[in-house]
């Protein structure tokens, strides 16, 4: 009941969209495709949902072949495309009703599956979808993708533009869906969400950089990493970018994550360099890499 891809290639005219994509998603697994816009995530989703034919390679979804069995696949999967596909001039409730009807079911029949998320937009059920805020549209689109109780769920950037509270609730809901045996392939640009998947594939420029459990990806980060802070963040970043020993420097919330090129690195030396560059209120302390550090490191190569 999982998903399997082997050696999938796809080009649009001369542009290579994805190359030699091979991975398996186990039945009941919550699997994340992590990568920036344009990395090829959407192409993979479109191939798996039978909307696009690959140039080469084989793929199955819930044991069904994406070419031979495309009709059966369409009935047993749920797909939430990145750019939502709602009817802007139908109301919230009419949209949901519409999707229920085309799959031969009713809202009432599967309501328990969508309850948590739908309740948040239910107060606006008579509002036209076109008038909803960006995040409210995403919630409606997800409800629509779930209304026929799919076996496999494809979610292409479901939380882009969704606020932190709702993102948290959204992932709690994905975990509950997973417990009901639904296999989920989800893509996201939010790295903190990658940590919530069973396994992830990091993807860039149409190729897979790594496939593993999220913690294993983080553990492979090759450098010691430091939190650096100063009164003037902009100046701090600029100073570090010009420092000859800098390996990488990225703003991270109230800190900057810094790694040094040298094998032996003394924080006192960096402290001194920053002071002599006119920065004040400097702190430097070791910290741990997170998944975002790991991704940026892999993406650099």
């Amino acid at each position, binding site marked *: 009941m999982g998903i399997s891809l082997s050696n999938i290639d796809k080009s649009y005219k001369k542009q290579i969209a994805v190359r030699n994509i091979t991975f398996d998603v186990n039945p009941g697994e919550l699997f994340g495709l992590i990568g*920036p816009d344009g*990395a090829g995530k959407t192409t993979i989703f479109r191939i798996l949902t039978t909307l696009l034919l690959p140039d080469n390679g084989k793929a199955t979804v819930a044991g069904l072949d994406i070419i031979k069995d495309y009709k059966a696949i369409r009935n047993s999967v749920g797909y939430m495309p990145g750019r939502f596909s709602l009817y802007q001039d139908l109301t919230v409730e009419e949209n949901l009703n519409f999707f229920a009807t085309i799959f031969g079911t009713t809202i009432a029949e599967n309501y328990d599956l969508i309850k948590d998320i739908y309740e948040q937009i239910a107060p606006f059920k008579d509002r036209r979808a076109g008038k*909803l805020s*960006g*995040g409210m549209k995403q919630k409606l689109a997800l409800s629509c993708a779930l209304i026929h109780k799919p076996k496999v769920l494809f979610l292409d950037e479901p939380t882009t*533009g969704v*606020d932190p509270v709702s993102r948290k609730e959204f992932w709690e809901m994905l975990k509950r869906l997973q417990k009901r045996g639904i296999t989920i392939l989800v893509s996201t*640009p939010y790295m903190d969400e990658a940590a919530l998947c069973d396994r992830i594939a990091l993807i860039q420029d149409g190729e897979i950089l790594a496939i593993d459990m999220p913690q294993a990806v983080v553990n492979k980060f090759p450098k010691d990493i430091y939190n650096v802070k100063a009164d003037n963040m902009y100046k701090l970043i600029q100073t570090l970018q010009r420092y000859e020993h800098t390996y990488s420097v990225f703003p991270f*919330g109230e800190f900057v994550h810094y790694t040094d090129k040298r094998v032996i690195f003394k924080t006192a030396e960096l402290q001194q360099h920053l002071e002599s560059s006119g920065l004040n209120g400097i702190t430097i302390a070791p910290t741990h890499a997170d998944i975002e550090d790991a991704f*940026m490191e892999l993406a650099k190569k």
Partner: protein
Amino acid sequence: MKNENVIEVENLTKAFGAFKAVNAISFEVKKGEIFGFLGANGAGKTTAIKMLIGISHPTSGKAKVVDFDVYTQPEAIKRNIGYMSQRFALYDDLTVQENINFFGGIYGLSRKAIRQKSKDSLVELGMHEISSKLVGSLPLGWKQKLSFSVALLHEPKIVFLDEPTGGVDPITRRQFWEMIYKAADQGTTIFVTTHYMDEAEYCDRVSIMVEGKIEALDTPKNLKQQFKVASMNEVFLKLARNIE
């Protein structure tokens, strides 16, 4: 000096029928400030921005943007501000260069000024080699950076950025913030919404909207202190829907 107000808002309200999408908000933004305008989905951020940039008429309340009144001088406001909408704001079927020329023209720049500005921006963005590519073929992060440059073409006093980094990859997202820092450093006021809480930490001050009202407004440091938490993410979780 950061003491001059470039935005002054008092009891600003927008109602759709009986529903108040923006409900009597009041605040000021200072020149050169990076002002983070946060809030849950549907809190009213985009609706408030539309009133501030002079494209939507308030139901009631007052607002002055760069010394101009939103009721009587919306045209003057539009000339003095830059705006990047939540959905992408450039033409996909024009090239990078054509987009710059087009928007430069709209903002009333001379040909010479456009030529100079576009050269500068393309170098800064590292896009001079792809200036004849269609914008539609660029990765989202590049589009957003280009879009920001375009919003700065006419040297506006304030730029309004509505979720500029939603869906953008981690590296480009950071490059985008470096552009924001740079513009602010040169005196441009930045008014920005985001759902990334690490980005909230980059702002000088942050307001958090909940169901049409501003429930908190302070520096990230003070907000964390006030709510006795370690990160802006926790501040947001505490406030935005009163959970936990």
